[in-house]
């Protein structure tokens, strides 16, 4: 401390904390409204898909949206390059 601290730039771990929180909180809020079975559904679908295509776990995305007053379950699977058109 003392003289040196006048010139040293303070490290901002608070900013890092805020960034991390912003992301995780947004993610958890998104998941909040959705039914509890979604993660399980995602896992089981992934297992089935895995039998036929070797996909990455992050390639299966399930979202529950609302369109014109109807609940829409949207499932998208990104197939790896080499498998396409097989």
């Amino acid at each position: 401390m003392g003289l040196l601290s006048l010139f040293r730039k303070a490290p901002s771990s608070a900013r890092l904390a805020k960034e991390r929180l912003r992301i995780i909180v947004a993610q958890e809020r998104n998941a909040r409204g959705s039914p509890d079975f979604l993660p399980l559904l995602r896992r089981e679908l992934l297992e089935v898909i895995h039998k036929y295509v070797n996909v990455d776990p992050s390639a299966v995305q399930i979202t529950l949206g609302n369109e014109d007053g109807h609940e829409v379950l949207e499932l998208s699977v990104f197939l790896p390059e080499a498998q396409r058109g097989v």
Partner: protein
Amino acid sequence: MAEIIVVTSGKGGVGKTTTSASIACGLARRGKRVVVIDFDIGLRNLDLIMGCERRVVYDFVNVIQGDCTLKQALIKDKRIETLYVLAASQTRDKDALTSEGVQRVLDELANDGFEYIICDSPAGIEKGAHLAMYFADRAVVVVNPEISSVRDSDRILGLLASKTSRAEKGNGGVKEHLLLTRYNPRRVASGEMLSVDDVKEILGLDVVGVVPESPDVLSASNAGLPVILNDDSDASHAYEDAVARLLGETVPLRFVAEPKKGFFARIFGS
């Protein structure tokens, strides 16, 4: 008409009981009829913070199970005329609290003319925490400016918005307030601690109070004297401000700026 205020946080050790005790005292000091209830079944602690641990004969669960009347279980505070405490039970029975039982006690308290019912929630998101918030009109969410506390609070906000009577009935939901504790303006200024504005922005809540980190909080709990009653303490003033805001008064935030250092302290360090 009694107003039910839950003091909650998700994470443990952030100051729920300290806050419940101080808010209850603050409201009662303003002449309101107040009861503060410990919902932490099995881990009773509010009685210690309120300094009435040796006067607990009957508790919350005794009332619910009909072992005694509500009047017998209410502990009258020795310092403030209009303040009462309802202690938690030390039973290990997780199902001792029932939704119907809690509702019955709350209704009876309201009928007895209590104006404020403060529910001191246990940590976590189990049954005790659920029942502490279920009947609430308002929630004071206690948060430390620390990453896990903020995240847990957001989880609690999700529960307040869905798993409460007000949310289920759709009549406006529970009004939520943010109360920061263990705030250290010096560390905020040096970028080591999340600021009031950071936490406010992440959680999207209005701030009802910022309580600075203070050694007086520990001395207060050592003595069984809610810290708001120590009029020499910054923590007391901060809680007093929070009580004023809960009552709808507009009070500027104090204790959020770093205390000014003198010229010499700056040059030679402290």
